[in-house]
């Protein structure tokens, strides 16, 4: 049998396979280095980084829910300088594409991070986080209003030479409207979905399970919602889409690819299986062999 092609092209760069992690679920890869092979995924996506350190939210920050979890971390991060010196330096030793997730409270903060990362060759893509539901100032405010999303996308487009992925929120009435807004101002790709806002109450303590009261729902519970949105967005824009939301195995990944995603990301399931990305890559190859498919691109967007 001839060589199978699992590589996909994203904004002019080749990924050796279409599987990556979702931001925030894998640190910067460093934390999982002893548990899985970081060279295998098509890309690694870092946790969100802002210009200065962020404290994040009070605890409890996480709680399990049926086939999923809620989180309200609040984008705690050590700030750009520590990130570059430590996390990005670590990623220099990893043989895969690097996507840096960027967050901020204001347009100026996003711009500062994007501009500084222009100097870093190890950064292959920026993913702009305008969809975190757990931060009061900034973040999701940019991702739920088409006007503000256009404005920040335009501003960042002027500051960065890196391929720019805009990460969309599902907490909107019509996600295709936001997708088109980002595309119109120069986004190179879109990733979706971020978490869905949810809540859990601890009836014994008669309190909210999360200190933040609400959190972002992720995991298999959201997969059908995510798939529908990935399908809708893929058919509404011309730029590539990275699909995510409750992916656990190759079959799930194939659903997103068939719906139009150029690549897929695994999020919460990495907490269950640190090798999930490798299992999915191997599962995709096995499926291609079974289906006598020589190129993964042949099934992308077939529906």
């Amino acid at each position: 049998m001839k060589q199978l092609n699992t590589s996909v092209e994203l904004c002019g760069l080749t990924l050796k396979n279409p599987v990556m992690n979702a931001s925030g679920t894998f640190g910067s890869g460093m934390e999982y280095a002893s548990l899985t092979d970081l060279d295998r995924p098509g890309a690694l996506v870092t946790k969100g980084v802002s210009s200065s350190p962020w404290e994040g939210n009070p605890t409890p920050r996480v709680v399990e829910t049926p086939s999923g979890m809620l989180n309200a971390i609040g984008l705690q991060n050590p700030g750009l300088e520590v990130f570059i010196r430590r996390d990005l330096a670590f990623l220099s030793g990893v043989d895969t594409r690097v996507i840096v997730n960027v967050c901020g409270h204001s347009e100026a903060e996003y711009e500062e991070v994007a501009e500084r990362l222009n100097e870093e060759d190890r950064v292959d893509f920026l993913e702009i986080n305008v969809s975190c539901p757990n931060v009061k100032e900034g973040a999701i405010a940019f991702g739920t209003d088409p006007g503000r999303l256009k404005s920040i996308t335009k501003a960042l487009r002027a500051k960065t030479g890196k391929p720019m992925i805009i990460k969309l929120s599902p907490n909107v009435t019509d996600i295709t409207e936001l997708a088109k807004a980002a595309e119109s101002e120069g986004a190179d790709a879109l990733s979706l979905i971020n978490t869905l806002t949810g809540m859990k109450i601890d009836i014994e303590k008669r309190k909210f399970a999360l200190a933040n009261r609400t959190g972002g729902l992720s995991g298999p519970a959201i997969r059908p919602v995510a798939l529908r949105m990935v399908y809708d967005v893929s058919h509404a824009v011309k730029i590539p889409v990275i699909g995510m939301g409750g992916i656990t195995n190759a079959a799930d990944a194939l659903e997103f690819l068939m719906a139009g995603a150029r690549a897929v990301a695994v999020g919460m399931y990495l907490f269950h299986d640190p090798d999930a990305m490798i299992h999915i890559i191997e599962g995709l190859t096995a499926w291609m062999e079974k289906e006598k498919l020589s190129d993964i691109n042949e099934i992308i967007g077939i529906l």
Partner: protein
Amino acid sequence: MIHKAAEVLSVNRLGEDIFELRLLSPAAKEATPGQFVMLFPDSPAYLLGRPVSICEALPEKEELRFIFRRVGFGTAAFSRLSPGTELFLTGPLGNGFPLKEARGKVFILGGGIGIPPLFGLGKELKKDDSLSLNFILGYRSKAEGLFLSEDFSSLGDCRLTTDDGSEGFPGTVTDCIRSLDIIPDIIFSCGPLPMLRAVKQYAAEHGVKAYLSLEEKMACGVGACLGCVVKTTGTDPHSGVHNARVCAEGPVFDSEMVVL
């Protein structure tokens, strides 16, 4: 650190909702007292690991012993495991107790389901003849079960307390230590948050170094998700902010470094 299936050797009920689980796992060869593992219920609906502290590791037999309280779906599932079946485990995780800090009169204070990890600690410290080991173990009541109390009495001077006075000293662990005429040289402690706050206060009043093992809701267990942080008095070197990860920098912290 490994993420692998472990074989169940035995499950025993020690009290109303208290269970002992023994697993066969190579993680036993790396584990030090105070570390924990993530145990995964075999369920598509409950995906997260449950952090469970290691009571005792027997490296030569590759055996890990855990004692846990049945509180929710995951621990209920663990309580029903049959010998010969398997469950996934990630570990050992966390820093463990700083054994080298032990000196002179060592007081080991445990409360409730915080007692088990102190057994592995006591066993390790007993190897050093220069130390005098004093245990104060707090339970809810005799009826709930005085799990491990006999194991501890073989290690050193052991006092029991119960909230309802049904066994030993009536009151809390810190009430008990305050009733004694001895000031420890060092304290190691694990238990519920109100107890750890009281231990921290006692240590501060008496100028005694105390190491506390903390608990927090976790998702990843390996330092990636930043779910399980504790407020720190100074800037944490890893996070760059006033938060340390209980799973990675902890679960054991110098009491002066954390805000409880």
